[in-house]
């Protein structure tokens, strides 16, 4: 998340809008954004609407034993088609911004 914020200008320059999605409430995400200085869009999915449709539900892994999302990234083009994705095998390993920017530049 921090690395996305750091590269936000580059993402915007190639016409890519980063959007973070989790089960956190809008208030919780707002607090996080204020504290960490994140200025891109954060969406709240407590009912697993999107997380369920993308088949990312990680059952009972939240601090309160609630269902959360596994980490995953999808690059969706202007027609709504998935052009790249990363379903990490290890929660500590994430896609690097340079890697995503490379793919984003190739989008028409």
């Amino acid at each position, binding site marked *: 998340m921090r690395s996305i914020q750091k590269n936000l200008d580059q993402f*915007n320059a190639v016409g890519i*809008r980063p959007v973070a999605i989790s089960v956190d409430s809008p208030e*919780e995400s707002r607090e*996080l954004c204020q504290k960490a200085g994140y200025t891109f869009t954060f*969406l709240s999915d407590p009912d697993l609407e999107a997380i369920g*449709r993308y088949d*990312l539900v990680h059952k009972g892994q939240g601090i309160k034993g609630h269902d959360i999302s596994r980490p995953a990234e999808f690059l969706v083009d202007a027609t709504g088609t998935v052009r790249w994705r990363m379903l990490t095998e290890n929660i500590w390993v994430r896609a690097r911004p340079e890697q995503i920017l490379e793919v984003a530049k190739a989008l028409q």
Partner: protein
Amino acid sequence: MEKPKFNWSIWMGVVLSIFAFLSYPLLFVNWPVTRDFPWANIALFVVAAFLLFVGIRRAFAPGRRRLSKIFSALGALLSVLVLGMFILVAFIGSRWLPASTRAPQVSQKAPGFTLNDTNGKPVSLTELVLQPINGKPAKGVLLIFYRGYW
């Protein structure tokens, strides 16, 4: 019998191994280089193991008190447990992820959704894709699903 000296290398080793563990989620996870593979933490564990080795040798040298032997053995055991915890957190538990076989594949349509943003305003995937960025038409969105903090 010589005056017992404080076996600092054992305790440095114990403290360092605890730091080697905690510094991964709290510190080194902030940089991709030290996050994707925990080099820094493994290096710290190696230094801790060296200190413990030196400390144990000292504790079991002739003339040391039995208490020193017991404490150094306990310290080493604690460090081994911490290393085990680290391996569990960094390599094993972190891979317990659902299969996600129905997750949209490349060249498939991304499933639509409408979710609230941080102001509680509903936003749809279509809007996110169509909204211009800095006055220019957007080429796409990067959806970043994350575990959440609460």
